[in-house]
């Protein structure tokens, strides 16, 4: 036994040296359970360690800009102005790598109503603008024939913290309601015309559960796991769709998928698609040597291979955790973007 010990130690040391690459990332909290799964599986497969801090999309973008992480993660794509600022500052582009699809659903607390309530985009906008104030409003009643909506006052609940969820929600409302676009607009935190603010998905869900007549919004994963009632939303094709993995994937089947993968899926034209869906992205520098956090070609290569694994093999882990997998079009666009990743001008992924 004693004879083997030095040998074993030497082997371990060699293994540690060979697999010593550690990558770090920071950003969105929404995909954190999924990323934790990816990174633990990937560590077992290749030995590459990934430290991911789920500090919020904004924090992830800040860290990416200051060059303290290998990759950032965000629920919203970078705005054009932000991209231009990045290119001016670092002389390279940001590559958006979509990893999964999520949905935001309207959640509510209506005692005595069993069937899922149906909403349309303009009605949701009017509720969140404070224009529709009662559950038995004619506009809501017209969408829900046969459902006995109580004459309760509507209490609007929304996120008080900045969040990607709010971005997706408000971006959708801005698309379907000109008044919302003009008065409030889309953003991770907006000037809400009405309502109570709760911190985080759990804050919003807590307030909705506590308040009869409340309506709020939360991520699909959160609503499903916590068994909160959520409604169906009418999509552009006129169908009422209740969010699930199939309707999420359908929402992303776009004919004209943009090459940079920065695409908004809200108000999707797809007939079966759920209208309040979005990708979540990992963000990296295209020229990885421009990122101060990337210390060597080996690290850059490990990062590129990790991303390649996530958009292919990693996708199998999505659905078990209630995230929809990427549609074929998104994978194709991303493959091309990943091939463009370079370190000192050398491409990192072979053909």
């Amino acid at each position, binding site marked *: 036994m004693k004879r083997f010990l030095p040998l074993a130690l030497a082997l371990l040391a060699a293994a540690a040296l060979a697999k010593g690459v550690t990558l770090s990332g920071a950003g969105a909290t929404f995909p954190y359970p999924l990323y934790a799964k990816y990174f633990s599986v990937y560590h077992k497969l290749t030995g590459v360690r990934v430290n991911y801090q789920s*500090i*919020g*999309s*904004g*924090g992830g*973008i*800040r860290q990416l*800009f200051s060059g303290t992480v290998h990759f950032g993660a965000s629920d919203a794509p970078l705005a054009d102005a*932000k991209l231009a600022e990045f290119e001016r500052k670092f002389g390279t582009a940001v590559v958006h790598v979509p990893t999964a699809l999520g949905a935001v659903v309207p959640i509510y607390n209506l005692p005595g109503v069993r069937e899922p309530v149906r909403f349309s985009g303009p009605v949701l906008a009017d509720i969140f603008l404070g224009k529709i104030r009662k559950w038995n409003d004619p506009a809501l009643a017209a969408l829900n024939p046969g459902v006995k909506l109580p004459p309760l*006052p509507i*209490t609007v609940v929304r996120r*008080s*913290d*900045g*969040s*990607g969820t709010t971005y997706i929600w408000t971006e959708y409302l801005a698309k379907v309601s000109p008044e919302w676009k003009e008065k*409030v*607009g*889309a*953003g*991770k*935190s*907006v*000037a*809400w*015309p*009405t*309502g*109570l*603010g*709760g*911190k985080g998905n759990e*804050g919003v869900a*807590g*307030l909705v559960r*506590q*308040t009869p007549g409340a309506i709020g919004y939360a991520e699909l994963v959160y609503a499903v796991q916590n068994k909160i009632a959520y409604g169906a939303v009418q999509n552009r094709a006129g169908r009422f769709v209740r969010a699930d993995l199939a309707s999420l994937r359908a929402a992303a089947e776009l004919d004209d998928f943009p090459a940079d993968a920065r695409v908004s899926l809200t108000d999707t034209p797809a007939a079966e698609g759920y209208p309040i869906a979005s990708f979540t992205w990992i963000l990296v520098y295209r020229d990885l040597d421009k990122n101060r956090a990337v210390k060597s070609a080996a690290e850059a290569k490990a990062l590129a291979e990790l991303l390649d694994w996530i958009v292919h093999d990693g996708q199998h882990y999505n659905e078990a955790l209630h995230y929809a997998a990427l549609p074929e079009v998104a994978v194709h666009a991303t493959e091309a973007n990943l091939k463009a990743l370079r370190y000192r001008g050398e491409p990192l992924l072979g053909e």
Partner: protein
Amino acid sequence: MRDKIYGQLGDRVFTAGLVLLGLAVMLIAGLMAWELGAGGWEAFRSFGFWGFVRGSAWNAVAEQFGAWPFLLGTLITSAAALALAFLPALAAAIAVAEYAPRWLAEAVAYLIDLLAALPSVVYGLWGIFVLVPLVRDHLEQPLFLWSAEHAPALMGVLGPPTGIGMLSAVLVLALMIVPYASSLARDAIRLVPRAQREAMYALGATRWEVVRRVVLPYARGGIFAGVILALARAIGETMAVTMLIGNSGQLPYSVFGPAATMASVIANEFAEAEGGLQLSSLLAVGFLLMLLSLAVNLVADFILRRMSVGEGRK
């Protein structure tokens, strides 16, 4: 040998260590103020210092920022909480120090101190699950319905009776600061010299007269110090308030309706601020919060100097 140990070298090292630690505290406070001020500089430059302080729009989409709703929210909630908490805290302190039998006094004092040790998130949870439904069903809704029938003008002042809002936040905040005001008051009351009380009793005073004429005037410095500590705690309290206040910076505020404070807006928006004017404005709010705390402490110090009696006044 003794001289060597207690002599010059040891003394000097000790003094140097103390001075260094003292200076470090000052340095850290100065650095924090500097960092917040420098980070908020962009916001102050864009809107002007008073423009930022008095501005009531907070809109990250339009990049318009003003701290007034949050400043107002902080001032109202902490002042109201202090007003609510002061008399109960003082009463508890007097009861523990003067009236209660020893075993009861110790138990009550221990429980009050325990209140201070509870994490604020626990207060927040208790508020959401216990206080909010109670306040909503038995206080806000009856009052609101009554005002709808008898005094419609009052409805705007009361605001929507959802239970989440200013009133619940103030109630929980008041509960949270009672121990701070109470323990300092208790200690101050216990420090009142025996001779003073006995002299008063010798003159034939009742227990109440002794408390009113001797104990309270003598201890008022300590009582006031507790009040200030409680106020500072209320101004800075973040978690419980964020969970209960409804987080809406829409002016005008109402009694039941949602509001927001400086600490709550920072806690809410910092993580997702991508930089630029929003981040700068949040840091500027932090800077104002620091100024507010400084102002409270300076005023308190001034008053404390004027009102302290006995040993303090020479």
